[in-house]
């Protein structure tokens, strides 16, 4: 589903990604862990072209991200084409980023109705189902500011799911939440994983990574230090850096 080969990214002189290689299979749940500043979030944002990569190759579902290959040349995609690609990838942000001027229902139908031009009736019905699924059926008419962080994040997941994405990206979805609200969000993510959704999750929830992840990738300083089966990487890490990180986090 996602194929990264030697992906590089720099902000000015600061190299954030120094050659990332990664493969995510369809239906796989990959958890990205590592200290802050290690490039996890940046890599995630490259996958739906919120950031442009400076070198290497990154493809989703067999198609290059942000470019079209014609013979020997790479043509940059137009805004509209990039948007088309993004609409197939769901993303959940650390700070939720719900649209505060719209009700919960309108937040969820905004993608289908405005981007896919789906009829509004069925989209609303679908939105209600998704809200029910994340346990917030009674919050249809509420505004984001009237919800707790945990509720907002679940609405954000429902908003992303409304686009029927083939891949879901989670950027530290529980980092801005009160500890007691983390569980509800993780439950929703777990059920998504059980249904076979392909997911890439940047997280500090080591327990979630161990339990739900099919693969755990430990990144540090813009490179992948270690990756593999969660139990292996998390319980008997081979690299010193991984050991030191886990010793601090666990």
């Amino acid at each position: 589903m996602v194929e990264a080969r030697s992906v590089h990214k720099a902000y000015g002189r600061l190299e954030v990604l120094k050659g990332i290689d990664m493969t995510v299979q369809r239906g796989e749940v990959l958890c990205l862990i590592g200290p802050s500043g290690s490039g996890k979030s940046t890599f995630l944002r490259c996958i739906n072209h919120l950031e442009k990569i400076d070198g290497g190759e990154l493809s989703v579902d067999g198609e290059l991200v942000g470019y079209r290959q014609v013979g020997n040349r790479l043509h940059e995609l137009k805004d509209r084409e990039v948007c088309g690609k993004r609409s197939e990838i769901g993303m959940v942000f650390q700070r939720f980023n719900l649209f505060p001027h719209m009700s919960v229902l309108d937040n969820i139908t905004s993608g289908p109705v405005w981007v896919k031009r789906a009829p509004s009736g069925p989209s609303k019905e679908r939105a209600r189902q998704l809200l029910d699924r994340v346990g917030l059926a009674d919050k249809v008419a509420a505004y984001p500011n009237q919800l707790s962080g945990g509720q907002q994040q679940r609405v954000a997941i429902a908003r992303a799911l409304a686009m029927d994405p083939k891949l879901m990206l989670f950027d530290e979805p529980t980092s801005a939440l009160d500890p007691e609200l983390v569980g509800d969000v993780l439950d929703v993510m777990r059920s998504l994983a059980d249904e076979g959704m392909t997911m890439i999750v940047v997280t500090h929830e080591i327990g979630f990574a161990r339990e739900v992840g099919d693969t755990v990738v430990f990144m540090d300083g813009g490179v992948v230090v270690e990756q593999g089966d969660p139990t292996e990487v998390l319980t008997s890490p081979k690299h010193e850096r991984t050991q030191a990180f886990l010793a601090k986090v666990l």
Partner: protein
Amino acid sequence: MTEPPAPGHPPATVATGPSADPSTMKIVPVRHPWRWVASAVILVIVAMLVNTLLFSHVVRGQTREGRFQWGVVGHYLFAPSVLRGIVVTLELTVIAMVAGVVIGIILAVMRLSPNRLLSGSAWVYIWFFRGTPVLVQLFFWYVGISYLYPHLTFGASIALPHYTVHLPFWQGLWTVNSTTLVTSFLAGALGLSLNEGAYMSEIVRAGIISVDDGQTEAAASLGMTKGLTMRRIVLPQAMRVIIPPTGNETISMLKTTSLVSTIAVVELFQATQNISNTNYEIVPLLLVASLWYLFFTSVLTVGQYYVERYYARGSTRALPPTPFQQLRASLTHVRVRPQPALAEVPWVAPHE
């Protein structure tokens, strides 16, 4: 922890002892004597003001008459020519503000564009129109245009050494005399609009910048194009920041329209001037104009309040009371409870 009474002092009275119940005691509020003094001073000033406005008289020539001649004011307040002037003033205000907002949004988006040519040209526009007095601009549109371009030609023609290439699709170009096209009203509307656009663009730009980047990213992640994101996500949120200064600009514009009296537009101020030029009742007619300006700025102030409430949707849990509610509350001395942000949305506890 009760301290033993200091030697030589009588034991504390029962009322201050720990056994007394504070909930049954009488509360003595703090006195504010200076507030009474200030109130008295203001009351005296108000009384003097009312007296001089309504009851004082003055001898002019041979006659003794009311100082402010309210009778004359009342006589001309609804004079047909004054009412016609009001219509022109309101027309100019609406045209200039609508055009100003449209120009402002376009310029603001241009200035925020990564394209240097776009942002640069928007900058030059703002630099020019903010950098010259609006009065000078008005004269420019009125007399300058017909002086510089006596005949305005619509469509383009390119003069080559031997031919003139006419670009529009019909044969003859539409040429008009500038003075017939650019009437004084049009010059006024044009001048005010273009000038207002420069100011509005900065207000709109401030609004756009105030919206969190996360909103644009979230919209992008759903596949929204830049235009759609601007229209549906960024601008509606920017409105909260844009509305208050725009209300300010509208009120300011209502009064700035009086400047077009200098280029022969008969708006409210010029209408009253025309009357006083014939009957020499200068001050009463200034009062007529002032009362009307005050009336319309008051209407705009209240209107702005309700527009602000509308765009505060979802941003606050409780909205401030409306001016009407405030008035009712101050009359009945009952505190108005904050309302839920939207009538149909019940307040929801912030925690699950």
